[in-house]
């Protein structure tokens, strides 16, 4: 991850604020509050947050679809983010975008390619490359009305890639896809990162983001609550003890001592040893409850757990402030 810190950011926001003005006084919505982001070249940045946290607002601001109330945005060193030079280097996949049914897969790409100023043999070469990259060669001449949801998402990704951009902004790229399609899209994105492209991925699919991202930022109420590499953020390690033969009463007693059940299948269940508590003490408690110990393993906090913890704390803080 060191490589990201030594080079200047490809996408940078400085004290970025966005206020959506309401029709009446007091109805304004402060969607982004002093947002400072620095996305480095060649990294996959997972941009997370619950609905209404400001993710889509950030993306729209980066693309020039809406305008900041204050603060600055710099993309590839330029503050003129609506310039053709900057936009030629950005590919964007919106969430749930519509692509007209009457066009064939390759016709959609031809349309978007022309908007990038591509022509002739160069355009056809780019269409071939993008279609191949997303694995849609077999269906390129089919009308979109015959495409499945996964195929539409792939063609959407292909349109974002048509100009071979340096930056990809992807809003929910794997939502609604089956596990195999998700894996394939994930592999494509990892491959793009290996080619040196920078990816900003906004998603609710936390497992996907955890598997692929170099760094993540969690946004809540327009404020970045935490940001860092996956390794930095998911450092908290706990021990997990797999046991069997626990009664309801035994679990209640263990729960009173801070030991929670994190997962169970039939007779077997996993107990989480709370941070700061000795594993040996927990094993003694299990023995006292006459539980059969199957295994003891260390466990790392998942991104989902981190997300719930961070957002939960921020929400509680907001409630307190109100």
């Amino acid at each position: 991850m060191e490589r990201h810190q030594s080079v200047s950011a490809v996408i940078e926001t400085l004290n970025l604020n966005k206020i959506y003005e309401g029709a009446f006084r007091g109805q304004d919505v402060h969607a982004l509050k002093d947002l400072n982001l620095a996305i480095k070249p060649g990294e996959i940045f997972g941009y997370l947050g619950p609905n209404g946290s400001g993710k889509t607002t950030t993306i729209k601001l980066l693309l020039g679809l809406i305008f900041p109330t204050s603060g600055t945005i710099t993309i590839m060193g330029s503050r003129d983010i609506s310039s053709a030079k900057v936009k030629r280097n950005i590919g964007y996949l919106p969430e749930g975008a519509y692509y007209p049914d009457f066009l064939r897969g390759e016709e959609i790409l031809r349309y978007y390619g022309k908007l990038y100023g591509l022509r002739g043999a160069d355009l056809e070469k780019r269409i071939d490359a993008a279609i191949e990259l997303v694995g849609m060669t077999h269906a390129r001449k089919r009308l979109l009305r015959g495409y499945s949801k996964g195929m539409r998402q792939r063609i959407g990704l292909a349109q974002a890639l048509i100009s071979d951009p340096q930056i990809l902004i992807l809003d929910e790229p794997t939502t609604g896809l089956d596990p195999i399609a998700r894996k394939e899209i994930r592999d494509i994105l990892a491959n793009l990162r290996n080619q040196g492209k920078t990816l900003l991925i906004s998603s609710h699919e936390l497992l996907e983001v955890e598997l692929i991202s170099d760094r993540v930022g969690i946004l809540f109420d327009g404020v970045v609550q935490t940001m860092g590499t996956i390794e930095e953020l998911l450092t908290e390690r706990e021990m997990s003890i797999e046991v069997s033969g626990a009664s309801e009463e035994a679990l209640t007693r263990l729960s009173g001592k801070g030991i929670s059940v994190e997962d169970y299948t039939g007779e077997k269940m996993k107990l989480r040893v709370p941070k700061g508590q000795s594993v040996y003490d927990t094993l003694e408690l299990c023995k006292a409850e006459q539980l059969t110990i199957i295994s003891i393993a260390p466990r790392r906090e998942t991104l989902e757990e981190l997300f719930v913890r961070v957002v939960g704390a921020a929400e509680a803080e907001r409630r307190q402030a109100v």
Partner: protein
Amino acid sequence: MTAVIDSFRGPWCIAVYTWREGMRKKTLVGFLVLSLLVIFGSSFMSSFLDPSAQSDMELKLIKDICVTTIAIFGMLITVFISASVVPTEMDNKVIYTVLSKPVRRVQYLLGKFLGVQLIILVNLALMGALFFLAIYLKQRILPTLLLWSILLTYFQFIIVSAFTFAISCASTSSVLPTIGGLFIYITGTLTEYLKDVFTRSGQTGELLDKIVGYLAYALYNVLPNLMHFDLKDQIINRAPNDPPTDVLIPNLIAYGLLYAITGFIMSYIIFRRKEM
């Protein structure tokens, strides 16, 4: 020169895409089919006339039905398509994928507006061609007057289209611009009455009466007068190959274009800082 051509490539690409998509809209196809059926059926309807009626009565009826059909359905197609192209793309998020490309907002608008004009022109050409054929088959004379009428009708529609398009740029759905477009058409055909209001005002000598008169006169001069483009009476009552009279066609074309450009500039002013 190359830079100028390049800057028009994007809009042209958007225009062709808009045209291809627009020609598949069910409502628009419905209007077109219905209008073609009415034009085609006008010959059949004329057979219900009293045989003892004047010999050109049948022809006048056909012409009347066809001119009215083109005016009504052409206007509906114009308003419907001009009101819907931008709000539809905002609704289905296609606009995000387009504006995130190296396409400036003015280029996007120009592309959409040109696409709308292509749709209107193609529909008008189809309706006009059938009308042309109906007259030619009845009279065996090339109805050149009809061609002039179709041309002027298009410039009447481009005015309605431009202002409807401007309203649609301020709206998130196509309902308000559709109502606005119909209002523009109706107001534009009634502009002549504003002149009457002005000439009749001031008779009572009261201040309010005078103010209303001047207001009507100001509106008469500002609002487009769509009746300038109307050759209906000439088409019905004169020979099909007569030249149009009482109209200066180049002036009317310039008049139509001037209002269309004004409407387009309004669209851009509204759209340039619009948040998607």
